[in-house]
């Protein structure tokens, strides 16, 4: 990190707004070398959903090394709920500062020698194994010793930060073994596990329980987040050898179920205002978890009324976002593709429109899973003609613009691809055949 900012937060904000994925990754590389200001952090927060999808290779820095163990439980500030074992992104800079102070000098030097290179898993575990326990001890020491940063806070704010410090300290302590185990699990959402994978979950939970209730709670939260399948975690806890009385074990499970339900409620409501892609992914994940929790019998630890309420909320959000996406968001982006712009801009516009269409398609799927199939089908059939009409207008417009054949073909295909994502390839072929007749009549019969 340099002390000389190379561009202002305003410039950065302007750059990322129109950037393609490849450009965004290059900008991120640049930002990694900047002094972080709240404005820059804000800009990064705005594009986080895009970054999550792109999974950029981040260069190795001490700050990032200390953040990796916390990532499983990091949530946007709006989703953070007091009492839950999660960490708000707003608290992250403070946690990083406190952890950095605790890292011994030779650890910092070891990290500097690797700085800038790609973070490989093996090196991450090796270096992290040396530094994470020290950072965890530093965080606990800062809390107990009343570090300056903390003593300025009062009341609820201090209490909330203390909770997050404790969660972060557990994560850093457990990271060397926990991360390696998490990497061995199948991709989320984890639906079916092999005996080997179930054994892995049970081993992790047994080890955590041996270190006390807080550690077990944190690890359970991590596993729920990692698997998107709370019931799997509950079943693993039931199955493993814990030296806990039955009622205490059930207490942990009930607490987990309650926390899952309240977190799902928050996430589902948060999807109401989130950017389209984030909302679609959040809803898909919420539905996966709700479906998992609904498999538990009526006498189980899950409050079924709460689950029904989450489904109802999620259903309302899906209806609102899907209607808006099909009738306005994607249609506007499809129209923007028909206006004359430079080819480079057109490429990034097409990419953005396709992303929105894919998110819409995920919402369609979410709606069907929530039992809104009939409504979804009628919305799809109502809106399909709008896209068909737009494609027809685009082809007519292309004739008037006198573009070369290849460019006209690409413009037609932009529309065809959007329709394919939203309505399937049969609908897309209809538009393609009709469009080809306008572009080159002799090749129309594809």
């Amino acid at each position, binding site marked *: 990190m340099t002390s000389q900012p190379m561009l202002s937060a305003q410039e950065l904000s302007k750059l990322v707004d129109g950037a393609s994925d490849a450009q965004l990754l290059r900008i991120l590389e640049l930002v990694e070398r900047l002094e972080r200001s709240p404005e820059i952090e804000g800009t990064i927060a705005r594009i986080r959903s895009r970054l999550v999808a792109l999974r950029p290779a981040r260069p190795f820095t001490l700050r990032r090394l200390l953040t990796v163990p916390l990532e499983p439980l990091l949530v946007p500030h709006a989703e953070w709920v007091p009492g839950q074992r999660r960490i708000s992104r707003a608290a992250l800079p403070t946690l990083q500062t406190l952890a950095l102070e605790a890292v011994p000098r030779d650890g910092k030097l070891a990290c500097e020698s690797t700085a800038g290179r790609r973070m490989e898993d093996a090196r991450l575990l090796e270096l992290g194994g040396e530094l994470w326990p020290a950072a965890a001890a530093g965080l606990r020491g800062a809390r107990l010793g009343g570090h300056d940063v903390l003593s300025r806070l009062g009341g609820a704010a201090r209490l909330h930060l203390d909770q997050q410090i404790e969660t972060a300290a557990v994560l850093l302590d457990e990271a060397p073994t926990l991360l390696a185990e998490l990497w061995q699990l199948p*991709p989320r959402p984890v639906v079916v596990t092999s005996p080997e994978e179930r054994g892995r979950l049970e081993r992790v939970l047994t080890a955590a329980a041996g270190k006390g209730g807080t550690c077990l709670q944190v690890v359970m939260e991590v596993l729920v987040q990692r698997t998107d399948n709370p019931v799997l975690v509950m079943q693993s806890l039931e199955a493993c050898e814990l030296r806990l009385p039955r009622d205490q074990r059930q207490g942990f499970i009930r607490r987990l179920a309650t926390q899952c339900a309240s977190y799902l409620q928050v996430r589902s409501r948060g999807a109401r205002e989130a950017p389209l892609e984030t909302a679609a992914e959040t809803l898909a994940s919420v539905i996966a978890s709700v479906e998992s929790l609904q498999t538990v019998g009526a006498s189980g630890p899950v409050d079924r009324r709460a689950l029904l309420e989450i489904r109802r909320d999620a259903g309302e959000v899906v209806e609102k976002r899907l209607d808006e996406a099909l009738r306005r968001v994607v249609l506007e982006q499809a129209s923007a593709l028909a206006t004359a712009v430079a080819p480079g801009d057109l*490429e990034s516009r097409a990419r953005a429109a396709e992303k929105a269409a894919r998110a819409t398609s995920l919402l369609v799927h979410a709606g069907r899973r929530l039992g809104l199939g009939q409504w979804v089908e009628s919305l799809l059939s109502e809106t399909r003609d709008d896209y068909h009409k737009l494609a027809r207008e685009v082809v007519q417009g292309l004739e008037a613009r006198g573009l070369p054949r290849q460019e006209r073909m690409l413009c037609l*295909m932009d529309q065809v691809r959007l329709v394919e994502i939203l309505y399937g390839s049969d609908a897309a072929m209809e538009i393609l055949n009709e469009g080809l007749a306008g572009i080159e009549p002799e090749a129309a019969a594809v």
Partner: protein
Amino acid sequence: MNKPQPEAAALLRPATFAERGVAVPFTTPVMNHARIRPSRSGHGELLVPNPSGARGLYVLPLDGAGRTFSLTVHDRLLLEELSRVQALTPQEIRHASRRVAMMGTAGREAARAATEAGERDQTERLLVNVLLLDRLFRQTGFMDFDWRRIALQKRDIRERLRGEVGRLGPQLGMRADEILNMLEEISIHAATVGLPDVGFVSRAQTALKMLGRFDEELRAWAALEAGAHRETANLVMDCASFTLQHGRSAIDKAHAILADVIGLVRTWRANSETIAERLALAEWLLDGWQQIAAIWEASRHEERPARRMTLGEIASMLPVLPKDAVKHLDDAAAPAIQSHRRRWVRLHEDWRTGSIVAADATQRNEAVRILDA
């Protein structure tokens, strides 16, 4: 290296490269890793891996795929294009799939990549043609030939060359036009492997480099793996190393053929098919591997569990070496590709169509089209 198990290996191995078929870059997830080969009826037929992930292939007529699976627009147009291809070789399939990608069926980026790759191929073919001619002049003792006298950018380049090439006629016993036509024909086959000691990296050499990088990255990634995943990685790495070794050797042998241009010109007419086969061996050996390397590359930002799935997918699509090829290779101990396949079906995925997760999978396949244009 794994020793082949005779019965299993014999059952799995196709007799020839043609019988194994050529990898086709479909974007429909269920058609991933499908191959095309000539059928008895004269039209091509498709070999599609069993969609359930179990052992075996579906053999479908070209026009049957659309009735069996729900195909993307890209794949419908590609099937149309494939039905017009005369020779089912890696080169022809590549050209057909490029024509479809250039329409924008896999997105604007893939269209641009296909256009650029097509232009690069043409330039390389022309360059190989010119370099072969240059070598021919030198090997026949016409050291004074000066390319500056031939303005390469002019349209009547052939007319200008005819006069110069005419000087070689008596030595080779051919007319100038014959020599020029022959070199043009040879260039079509030679451009894929390129010529030794010249300033461009041929397509086969690029594929080898890509495969080498894939092998290296997979080794580093697999170091943290254990159990079944490690075994899968080992199998893939064994096959990659084997292909690398024999791919390099095939390119070297092709270069040796192209080094003696006089001999090549004299024997081409009688043995053109055999020589063309030798020149194409590297491309057949590497067919499918560039796609594999591109799939791994496209997953580089994924987390370890997701890459493990990608590795499983790669293991199920490893190109099997035909009996013919194994017989002719110096070291016939080709890794035995185990036929136990598996498939992960994710939540929200219809296993028959790959629907919903298919949106991501199709997008991944389109990204692979850009990397492997």
